């Protein structure tokens, strides 16, 4: 049986999540937790850290931390700096 054409990409319709990442709105398509999100954003650095809605997420719990529509996420890493 053919799917009815309702004028929507079903994958996008069902799985798209709008997040605020580092101050910018960003649509996410295939991630349900923070570890998957880092993969989807192609952030491979072992030296990054994540805060979800102003709370720092332990690096050991990234894969257990679900993301939801409207979440505010900060992803940081080390940069050169002194004082």
């Amino acid at each position, binding site marked *: 049986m053919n799917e009815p054409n309702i004028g929507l990409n079903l994958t996008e319709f069902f799985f798209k999540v709008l997040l605020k*990442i*580092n*101050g*910018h709105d*960003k649509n996410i398509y295939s991630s349900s937790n923070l570890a998957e999100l880092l993969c989807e*954003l*192609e*952030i*491979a*650095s*072992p*030296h*990054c*850290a*994540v*805060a979800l809605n*102003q709370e*720092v*997420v*332990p*690096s050991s719990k990234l894969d257990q931390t679900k993301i939801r529509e409207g979440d505010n996420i*900060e*992803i*940081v*890493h*080390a*940069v*050169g*700096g*002194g*004082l």
Partner: protein
Amino acid sequence: MESTQFKVGDRVFKSRLIVGTGKYASFEQTRDAIAASGAEMITLAVRRIELDKAKDSILNFLDPKIYSFLPNTAGCFTVKEAVMTCQLAREAGLGNMVKVEVIGDEKTLFPDNEATLEASRILVKDGFQVLPYCTDDVVLCKKLEGVGCSAVMPLAAPIGSGLGVCNPFNIKLILEAVKVPVIVDAGVGTASDACRAMELGVAGLLMNTAIAGAKDPIKMAYAMKSAVECGRQAFEAGRIPKKLYASASSPINGLIDV
């Protein structure tokens, strides 16, 4: 002859120079200048990853097997920002020793001492080894020691100013007042400033701009390495007291009769 070791928190170093990694022209120059400085502990800042840019990291140029990291809270103006930045740094694998700075004034970059004390208190309770950047104030340094800081880091002069140690007497009073290491942080301009700070007897010296902003950062890094070593050795050797009048260093007896 080697100087005594530099101990801060649970870390032990040969070099008493701590250097920042900011303001360099490239990661390669950062790597080379830091190698020339002989520093074993280096500061890093924590910032947002730029999602749409190539993600080369400064840590690809600074081997964690060689260097001990001291993440800082530069740019933080509140207790909450500073605490969260340290927690993020720890989760990013940068360790639990942190340089806490809570800025209170944009023009001078002088620290907000009240907020620095509060952030330090929270972070010590959270298991961090805290090295706070602070003004050269004896009472404040005693309070920072009292909340469990692993060292105190009074400024020599405003950050990046290159003015040298503006108030050596305050630094000496702080040295008398606290048992934790005193590290002079910020304000050094050239090698003689570094030497003079170390001659006061401080445990260590933290700098960034004096090296990164020099015409030849790598040569200045060498100069600072030598100056810190010279100053420390002179302190350990014990200088002669200053006197108003001369004191001959050749024997007075046995002079010829003419």
